[in-house]
């Protein structure tokens, strides 16, 4: 019954989680929130993480009711993500692994999301839509790899939403995406935006440029409200995501879809995906904000799978990496 400690801090959320045999024993998290109109920079984010990580670690152990000796393995995010924040978390993981003489495991952040999604929802072999501020991929498992069927060719959908929020100076607390979602519910007018699906892939940077431009003009003339723009942006980008997910499901003959990543918290996205799934006779799985949003337990869960399958990360190989493709990892823990 291995108990795994997981550290996550690749973007502005820092979390430490404990998982044992499919049970999440602890999952505390803190978010670095910047003022409206601004985004989070790597150095400041790393500083935030360094200030709170040790308290979070203590909280996790206390909440789980475990001591360091009860932990069997230390998992941490090896990548992808932002450099300085990743390093800040990795050095703590390496240090406690050595202090407590426990094996270390570097985990792919995207796989952390997938494994937690599978654990929490019980989905067997879904087509996964992974959407967050840093990543946008459609993934399906095949022969020991999480294969990328489609992805953004420029920025992540969450990045598009977050940067649009800055233009309107929407609050980043608790997250810009959440606040856009609330405003979108009050939107009435659909503003036509570019729709950029490219085969299996999507593009968002053009939509962002367009809507930044449109926002200036239309808000000045009163042609639409900020709520209308939030609504229009969501409807457009979410429809694109539904399309590429459906395309992948059709290729794979898949009857299950799973949404993971911070943007997966969005209820409108879930609603649109559900409509598509019902039309295909497929089942949709999604998690709540505890597990959609970056968290330590998801790293612990992926670490748990990897640990049981015999993976280990020697200290000399434990360097973080900002680029880390989902299909680089050999998924030996699945058939």
């Amino acid at each position, binding site marked *: 019954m291995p108990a795994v400690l997981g550290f996550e801090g690749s973007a502005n959320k820092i979390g430490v989680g404990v998982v044992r045999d499919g049970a999440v024993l602890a999952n505390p998290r803190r978010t670095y929130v910047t003022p409206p109109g601004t985004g989070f920079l790597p150095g400041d984010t790393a*500083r935030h993480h360094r200030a709170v990580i040790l308290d979070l*670690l203590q909280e996790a152990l206390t909440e789980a009711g475990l001591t360091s000796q009860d932990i069997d393995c230390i998992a941490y995010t090896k990548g992808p993500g932002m450099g300085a924040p990743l390093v800040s978390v990795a050095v703590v993981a*390496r*240090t406690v692994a*050595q*202090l*407590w003489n426990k094996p270390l495991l570097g985990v792919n952040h995207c796989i952390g999301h997938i494994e937690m999604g599978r654990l929490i929802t019980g989905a067997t072999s879904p087509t996964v839509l992974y959407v967050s501020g840093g990543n946008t991929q459609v993934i399906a498992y095949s022969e020991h790899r999480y294969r990328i069927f489609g992805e953004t060719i420029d920025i992540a959908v969450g990045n598009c939403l977050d940067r649009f929020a800055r233009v309107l100076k929407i609050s980043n607390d608790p997250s810009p995406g959440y606040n856009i979602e609330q405003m979108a519910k009050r939107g009435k007018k659909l503003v036509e935006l570019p729709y950029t699906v490219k085969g299996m892939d999507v593009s968002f940077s053009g939509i962002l440029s367009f809507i930044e431009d449109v926002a200036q003009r239309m808000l000045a003339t009163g042609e639409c409200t900020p709520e209308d723009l939030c609504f229009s942006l969501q409807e457009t980008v979410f429809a694109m995501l539904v399309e590429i997910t459906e395309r992948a499901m059709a290729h794979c003959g898949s009857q299950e879809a799973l949404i993971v990543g911070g943007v997966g918290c969005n209820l409108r996205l879930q609603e649109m995906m559900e409509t598509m799934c019902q039309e295909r006779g497929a089942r949709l799985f999604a998690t709540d904000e505890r597990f959609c949003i970056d968290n330590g337990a998801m790293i612990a869960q992926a670490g748990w799978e990897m640990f049981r399958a015999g993976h280990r990360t020697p*200290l000399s190989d434990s*360097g973080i990496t900002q680029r880390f493709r989902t299909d680089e990892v050999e998924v030996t823990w699945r058939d």
Partner: protein
Amino acid sequence: MQAADADAGGPAGGADNSLEGRGQGGCGGLCSAGTEAAVAGAAPRVPRPQHAPGPGGDALSTAGRPETRVHIFALGVPFPSHLEAEIACASLAPDREPHGGIVEKQLTVTDSVLAIRWRAENSRLLRISIINFLDQLSLVIRTMQRFGPPVSR
């Protein structure tokens, strides 16, 4: 701790005519016997040499570009034991420096001292690397203080 000499192929000692002439080596001092590793003050100041102005120019215009000098910085961090120094080294060594190989650093452990030696031609990137390293080092030390001492092997 030791003051590092400038291994640069250029003139020895202080005759460096770069605008950032202190780049010949800092002495990050770890004077306390405890586990608290603090950098004691700034690098010792090198007296600015006097230059005869070149033809039609003043001292500044004859100065070499700071980026073309090799700068060395050495830091020594004492730990309570050899094992703890090794732990800190193994925690801090794996992550590669950004910007390709412009700034190089090497970590070594001798007895219970972790020694780090930087070498760079770009003084700005060197400074950034040192500051970032000190932040991560501080975190490692706080981790060891709070969750140590190391269990017996």
